[in-house]
């Protein structure tokens, strides 16, 4: 199972084994990592699972769909490396992925 690292806004680091096929959002929710709300449940309709992806990983991720960029307009402090974690499906390619969770989701 790939290891995913979540940096939370309280400066803590959580490294979790996340099953292939789950999303980075689900990995956080199932392991009680604070700061990801995922209000809509993974439907790309709320922007409350917003994460910052560490730069070196940006190219390895699937491209954003239009809908994701539209939702990121709504996110709290979006940056160039912003993604919705519900759109990042875990696979072996993402072994070692590091994401940072913003201080707020809305």
């Amino acid at each position: 199972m790939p290891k995913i690292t979540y940096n939370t806004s309280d400066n803590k680091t959580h490294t979790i084994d996340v099953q292939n096929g789950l999303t980075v959002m689900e990995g956080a929710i199932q392991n009680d990592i604070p700061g990801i709300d995922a209000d809509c449940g993974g439907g790309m309709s709320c922007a409350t699972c917003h994460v910052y992806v560490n730069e070196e990983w940006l190219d390895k991720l699937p491209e954003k769909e239009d809908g994701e960029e539209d939702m990121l307009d709504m996110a709290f402090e979006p940056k160039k490396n912003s993604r919705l974690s519900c759109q990042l499906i875990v696979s072996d390619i993402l072994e070692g992925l590091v994401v940072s969770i913003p201080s707020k989701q809305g």
Partner: protein
Amino acid sequence: MNKTDVLIIGAGPTGLFCAHQLGIIGLTCEIVDNLDKAGGQCIELYPDKPIYDIPAIPECTGEELTNNLLQQIKPFNVNFHLNQRVEELKKVENRWHIKTNGNKEFDVASIVIAGGVGSFEPRKFPVKECEKFEGKTLFYSVKDKTIFKDKTISIFGGGDSALDWAIELSNSSKVNLIHRRDGFSGAESSVQKVKALSEQGKINLYTKYQMDSVSGENKINSVKIKHDNGEVKDIKSDFVLGFFGLIMQLGPILDWGLNIDKKKVEVNTENFETNINGIFAIGDICSYPGKLKLILSGFHEGALAARGCFKYAKPDEKLRFEFTTTSKAAHERLGIKND
């Protein structure tokens, strides 16, 4: 004071169907919702997106589902209280008194919370100083557009609200439109109009910029905006408008003494009552082992919660189980004439 059997909090699909189930068993209800229309997340988040997992409906949009539910509860003449958020809750003998932020008061036997993930509130600027100006020279919605006449307005956002107001206000105000990227999520025709107005010099368009800070004493004087490349611009502004959509927040329900875990209200699965007698929770807001956040689960939960409400509304009567195909009482309540 509105006196009724049940107050439903939330006019999403779950709340609407619960109203139907209450009507079928002969209870009355009223519905409050913080939005200006019924439909909840279906209308606010995905009105045009098809839903494929409503039993016996292969495909329908959020808007169609809402309209069908409204049609289905029509016989019960349910009163809606929109743009209202519940604030205070008080137990008075064996009834509940509820007050909304618009000072509407209800006297009910029981309450069904069908509040989704909370009430929709505008998303705000991350910049802290904005709070100081909020409601005075910084707004997240427009109530009175006349105050903007001949002023300089900085509008932030890239969706329909931001584009529509930029176009509208450019007739009588100086408009800056600031958005974090080149693409816009609003309607293509509005995007084209904004671009045309920008070329004519009627709208100052700043893309790949976000708010950096606001300054002013009692009112805003100027806004600093920062480009992706780090460059900062100071633009004069009398007013600032932010349109970043809505976020859901649980609000005052948090203070009612309900058992809440991870923003969800714990319920039993027999009748979806919470730890407080007479208060039920259904739909996305409730949690129990195995909970699925599906509309169909909300319908089931609403049907059982409605039956749970019966003993509080009619303590001296016994509820008999009946089918709508054959129940005379249900037909009368639905306004169906039997031969």
